[in-house]
Structure formats: structure tokens, C-alpha cells
């Protein structure tokens, strides 16, 4: 790691101030950032540790939605009675990110700000059509938030403060894990709302998490795994690496989508 100054603001206001340094970087759970720093792939002058900011933590119900603070850890989302009751698919997703120690540290905001193409949370945020609230007072719709691999709508120094998740009729997330990293080689989040179905795919595309319109259309007409027969993703633009060709990932997206629909019931 390169040397850096360590700031630990106690409030969002202090954090916003600290982030004005253009070479500052926010530290949420650190489960991706710290390994990145170890490899000297990032060289912030100041690391702004967000872990002491109470106002961006916690889970509450707001206007029929589940509002989750950006600093809320995966384990807290997984264990939340409200999340388990209202969006069990989201609790299940959170309960299977990384490993227990990652879940004890990693946060919703950190995952979304990083927008790793193989991360789980982006699939839920996009699949549920959630809204991302930021320190700049913006409310960004999920459809506008994800802008490609590691790219988001966040501006310089802008921090996620919370995310509002609409409550679906039913939903499920199915993840096919990459056997080494245990990230999603391909993960599919399927959510059925009154009148519409959203399907989000993570892990598969070179453009990061994406919605799968053909699958959404088929499932909106008939929410059953069989409705996806004949609906297939093309391999173009899918990630090809040691663990899966583009064709394999495209195929897995179909398998995971069917299984998610079945799991959603």
C-alpha cells in the first residue's frame, strides 16, 4: 500500500468536506478497496473512513419501501426482520455475499459505489428498481445509476447515503458462483411487481449489471420458468475469462433466471 492520511469523520457533513480533496477516497466496508490498495492499484492521498457515520446506517420502512442506509453491513441486511419479511430475496442475497467476515464488514453503499461487474447488490438494486440517495441530495433511479463496469452516476466526492427498495409481490436471486473468488459468475435477480416484472443480470456482461428486456416481457405475460423457453441472451458483450466463455455466461443467465422464477414461487 502507498501511504495515505486517514480521516474518520463522525458525520456526513464532515465526510462531504473531507471528500472535497480530489485525491480522497471513501472507505466503506473496505472488502474490495483494501485488497486493491494492497496491490497498489489505487493511491489516494486521504482515505475517508465512513464507518463512524451513524446517519448512513440502519434499515427503516419509508413510504411502503425498505430504506437501507449506505453504511449498513451485509450481515445486518441479511438478519433484518423487516427485510426478511418484505423482500426475502434481498435478505437472501445479502446472506450469500462473499463470506461471513466479508458480510460483517461490507456495506450496501460500498458495493454500489464500486459497481463491480460481478457483485450481487447491483442485481438487487436494478432488479427491484430501487432509488439511490446521495450526499448531493440526488435521488437516482437504478436504471440511471449503473453506467457500466465500475462506472456509476456518482459525481466526484459524492457519497451514497441510502437506498430505497420497493417491495415486490415476489422476487428471487440466483447466483452461480465463480469457484475461486466466489463472486457471481452470473447472477439473476427476478422481481415481480403489479403489472411488471424486472430481471437484472450481474456477473455476465462487460457493461456490468443490466436488465434483460426479453425475459421481462416474457415473464410479465406469464410469470413461470417455462415462459423463458426460447428466450436466450446472446453471447455478444458477455465476459469471457478463465471461468466462463461469453456463451457459457449467456447460457447461465437463462438457467439462473428460470431457477429464480421457480424460487420466487
Amino acid at each position, binding site marked *: 500500500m502507498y501511504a495515505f*492520511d486517514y480521516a474518520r469523520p463522525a458525520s456526513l457533513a464532515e465526510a462531504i468536506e473531507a471528500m472535497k480533496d480530489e485525491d480522497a477516497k471513501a472507505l466503506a466496508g473496505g472488502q474490495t478497496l*483494501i485488497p486493491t490498495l494492497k496491490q497498489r492499484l489505487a493511491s489516494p492521498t486521504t*482515505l475517508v473512513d465512513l464507518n463512524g457515520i451513524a446517519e448512513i446506517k440502519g434499515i427503516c420502512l419509508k413510504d411502503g419501501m425498505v430504506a437501507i442506509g449506505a453504511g449498513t453491513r451485509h450481515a445486518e441486511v441479511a438478519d433484518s426482520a423487516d427485510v426478511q419479511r418484505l423482500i426475502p430475496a434481498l435478505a437472501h442475497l445479502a446472506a450469500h455475499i462473499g463470506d461471513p467476515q466479508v458480510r460483517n464488514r461490507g456495506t450496501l453503499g460500498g458495493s454500489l459505489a464500486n459497481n463491480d461487474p460481478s457483485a450481487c447488490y447491483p442485481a438487487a438494486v436494478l432488479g427491484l428498481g430501487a432509488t439511490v440517495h446521495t450526499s448531493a441530495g440526488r435521488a437516482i433511479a437504478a436504471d440511471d445509476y449503473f453506467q457500466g463496469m465500475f462506472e456509476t452516476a456518482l459525481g466526484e466526492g459524492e457519497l451514497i447515503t441510502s437506498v430505497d427498495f420497493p417491495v415486490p409481490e415476489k422476487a428471487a436471486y440466483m447466483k452461480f458462483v465463480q469457484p475461486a473468488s466466489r463472486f457471481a459468475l452470473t447472477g439473476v435477480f427476478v422481481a415481480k411487481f403489479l403489472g411488471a416484472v424486472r430481471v437484472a443480470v450481474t456477473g455476465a456482461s462487460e457493461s456490468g449489471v443490466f436488465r434483460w428486456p426479453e425475459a421481462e416481457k416474457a415473464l410479465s405475460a406469464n410469470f413461470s420458468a417455462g415462459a423463458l423457453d426460447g428466450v436466450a441472451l446472446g453471447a455478444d458483450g458477455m465476459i469471457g475469462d478463465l471461468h466462463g466463455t461469453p456463451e457459457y455466461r449467456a447460457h447461465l443467465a437463462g438457467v439462473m433466471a428460470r431457477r429464480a422464477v421457480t424460487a420466487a414461487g
Partner: protein
Amino acid sequence: MTKVSMTVNGKAVSGDVEGRTLLVQFLREGLGLTGTHVGCDTSQCGACVVHVNGESVKACTIFALGCEGAEVRTIEGMANADGSLGVIQAAFQEHHGLQCGFCTPGMVMSAADLLSRNQNPTERDVREWLEGNICRCTGYHNIVKSIMAAAATLRGEQVAAE
């Protein structure tokens, strides 16, 4: 250098660290608590697992300064007050849950967190919980047995205490 203070295994400690000093470096190099090991640099092997405020975390993926004021527990703090092995440690010895011993501290600390959350884990629960702990020696068979046995012992003790 910045001063950091925390409680480690019940003792108040402090030291001067850099921003980039990881908790595991502070424990090993600053405090001489070398029971916590480093087996990878991608936050996956779990040899460095310790407890921070009662929860298992990877000490290689948290900064020392991020633990200001925290309660930290390491493998050196897991034995009974008289120095005898704690329940989980004893189960690992009884069931041959370790060979080279390098991953063992992380395994024990991870298991302790599991058993504090789930007093009656199934074999599958234990195996899935160990997602973040890699062992190259045991094939996990006897680690799983050790943790299941420790859970049984702990349940027995609780029954006896009631």
C-alpha cells in the same frame, strides 16, 4: 503516525500506526500477538480472522485506525482463565481439526462467531460458514467435526447451567 487505542483480549493497548497499518500488522508487529496469521493478500484465506466488537472479521482487511476504541479478540484470548483450552480449542484437539496449524487461529475465531449466532448448526451450516476460511491440510472433515462437537459441548454446558 497516529496513536490508536483499543482493547485486545481484555487489555487496553495503544500504539502509533500509519494510516495504512492493517489491524493484523498492529497485532503481530505492534503487540507481538503472532497467533493471527496472514495467508493471502486478497482477503480470502481467513487465517487472520479475529473478532472486532464481537464479530469475526479479517484482520488483513480492516485498518488499525478503523478499530479505534474497539474490543478486539484474538486466538491468544480464547483459552480459559486458567490457561486450559477453551471449548472450541479443545474440540479441535480432540477431533484432530488441525494439522500444520497455520489456518487454525482463523478457523477457531470464525467458528466462535458461528457458535455465538447459531447454537445448533447443521453440517451444511458449518461448511457454508467456513466459506472464508481455507485449510490445505485437513480436507475440512475434522474441522467440521470439531465445530459440531464444540457446539454440542456448549449446548450441554448451557443446559447444565440452567
